[in-house]
Structures are given as structure tokens and as C-alpha cells.
């Protein structure tokens, strides 16, 4: 005999994500989930972003580098609170789930924080499926990867609100077709803001920083008004 169930398989995660979202909103924190394949430059992008923001906007970071503390160490040097998500030395987690973010957030003092970055595990597949209670998602791809990344990982690009094409300083040395890369992103999400920049040199950072600042202000006015 058949017994009807009709439930979302990830309903536990979704419930936890909603709780995170409520908590972050209460505290007036804008949360951005930063995702990419390994080595696209998430940490470098955050370092460069924090260098500009951290003196003006109180920031914090949750880092999902599950095997080492390398990324957390780099970001802590930016002078902001950093919470490291720990599993074991061979941690095989392929994404951050909402309850993991909740635990990391509990361990930090979010009072007064306006911007919380969550640097997800380097992976273009699994993190796309897991809501962590963020306000926005950004996907970072770099010019040393194929232009076709968006077409190969449509769910990731479809669920993000902005895309960064990083390592633009390498363009003169590569056959990378920037127009094609942009077109592929827009094919998946036609209205996505795309920022081509170099986190290393700082070239092209301004539009990204402005976009981010506008989101933080939107959130702040939403919670106070």
C-alpha cells in the first residue's frame, strides 16, 4: 500500500536556513554566500574587498576551508572577525549546510556587523543546492577556467545574484574569450551583474564594491525601516 509523504528532502536544511535568515535580519547583517570552483580566487577577492570595506563597514567572515586554516589565517590578517568551519583533517564536506553556518555564526559576535561573507567550499555543484540563509549569492570564475563553466554548471549560475570573472590581469597571456564567457553567464541568468576584475591588482574592483555597498544599504534600510 502506498503512503503519501510529499515533503522536500532538504526541508530540514531549508528550515534551518530560514532561521539563519531571521537571525541575520534581526541583527541587520547582510550575508553573501561566495562560491566558486577551487582556486578561482574567492579568498583573494575577499581580501581585496575587505581592504576597502573593513575600515568603513563592520565586516566578518565565515570560512568553509575544511581541511586547513590557510584561508582563515589570510582573512584574519585583514583585521576582521573570522570563524573557521572545522571538520577533521581529511574533511570531505562538499558544501556548507545551514546548520554548519548557524554554528559558526553563533561562535562570533555579530553585534554591529553589517556584512558577513560566507566563503563556501570550492565546488560548483553541491553548494548550489543548499540554502544557508544568505541574502545574496555570488559565483566567482576565473579566466584560467573555461568560458563554458556557466553552461556546465547551470544550477550554480542560475541561483546566483552576481558573477565575478576574476584574474583579469592574466588576460593578455591567455586565449580566453571574455565576451563568450559573459554571454554564457547571461544565457543562464540574463539579468546577472557580471564584474570582470583582478583581485590581485585591484583592476575593475570598483563596480563590484559599489554593487555590494548598495546591497548592504538596501538591507540596512529594510531592517531599520
Amino acid at each position, binding site marked *: *500500500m*502506498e*503512503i*503519501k*509523504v*510529499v*515533503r*522536500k*528532502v*532538504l*526541508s*530540514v536544511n531549508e528550515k534551518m536556513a530560514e532561521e539563519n535568515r531571521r537571525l541575520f535580519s534581526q541583527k541587520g547583517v547582510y550575508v553573501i554566500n561566495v562560491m566558486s570552483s577551487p582556486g578561482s580566487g574567492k579568498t583573494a577577492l575577499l581580501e581585496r574587498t575587505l581592504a576597502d570595506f573593513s575600515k568603513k563597514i563592520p565586516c566578518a567572515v565565515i570560512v568553509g576551508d575544511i581541511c586547513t586554516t590557510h584561508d582563515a589565517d589570510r582573512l584574519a590578517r585583514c583585521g576582521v572577525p573570522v570563524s573557521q568551519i572545522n571538520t577533521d583533517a581529511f574533511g570531505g564536506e*562538499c*558544501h556548507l*549546510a545551514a546548520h554548519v553556518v548557524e554554528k559558526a555564526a553563533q561562535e562570533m559576535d555579530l553585534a554591529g556587523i553589517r556584512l558577513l561573507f560566507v566563503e563556501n567550499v570550492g*565546488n560548483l*555543484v*553541491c553548494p*548550489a*543546492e*543548499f540554502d544557508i540563509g544568505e541574502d545574496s549569492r555570488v559565483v566567482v570564475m576565473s579566466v584560467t577556467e573555461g568560458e563554458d563553466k*556557466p*553552461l556546465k554548471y*547551470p*544550477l550554480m549560475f*542560475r541561483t546566483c545574484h552576481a558573477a565575478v570573472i576574476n584574474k583579469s590581469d592574466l588576460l593578455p597571456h591567455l586565449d580566453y574569450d571574455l565576451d563568450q564567457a559573459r554571454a554564457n553567464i*547571461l*544565457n*543562464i*541568468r*540574463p*539579468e546577472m551583474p557580471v564584474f570582470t576584475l583582478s583581485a590581485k591588482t585591484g583592476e575593475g574592483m570598483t563596480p563590484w564594491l559599489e554593487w555590494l555597498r548598495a546591497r548592504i544599504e538596501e538591507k540596512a534600510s529594510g531592517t531599520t525601516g
Partner: protein
Amino acid sequence: MHEMGIAMEIIEIASQSIPEALKGAKVHSVRLKIGKLTAVVAESLRFCFDIVSRDTPLNGAVLCIEETPVVARCQECAGEWTLESPSFSCPACGSGKLMLISGRELDIEAIEIEDEDDAHANGGK
């Protein structure tokens, strides 16, 4: 890559869904609806499910997976279409403002428990 965790969630939800009167009955199958725009590989999920369902009421159950197509509705012209490739612009008016009405499902729909006669004996339907 996260199919193991998803398999465990399925077992948790399915186990909770077995009525008290039928505890101990064999679960034949679990009916799932998985959208094409979901980061789940059916074969990996089946593999993981077979492993983690051992020593649970779901041991030996089969996953019946209905794959749902990616269907979008244009918010400008209200047209609806099925996406065969990942291109998210309206084929009629070219707008990129669209809503996905199917394709992101990851739902557990029903479980099938043995057997009809037992079920009648227990007053089930």
C-alpha cells in the same frame, strides 16, 4: 557528491512516515521527484541509499525516481516552455525575466509498504 547526505535525509523522512500500525513492515519503494535542474545524480543517490539503508526500515527498498523537466514561465509575455538546454531566455519575446515552475524539485512523494493483504488486515487503505 552530497548524495550520501540526501540518502540519509530520505531514510529519515521515509522512516518517520511509516504509520505506527505498520512498523516493522517492509518498505518496497520510495517514490521521489527530482528536477533536472537539481544537483543530484540519480545513480549516485541509489548507490548511497543502498548502503545507508542497511539496518533501517528502508533496507532493500527501491528508489523510484521521476525526473521532472525544467519548465519556465515568462514574466513578460506569460509564455510557458520546457527548457531542453540551459538557455534561460524566453523563446517568444526574448525576455530574461522568467520563473521556473518545474525542474528544481527534490521531493519525497510516497512510500510503498508491503503488502496489500496485511494492509487490509490492519485496517489501512
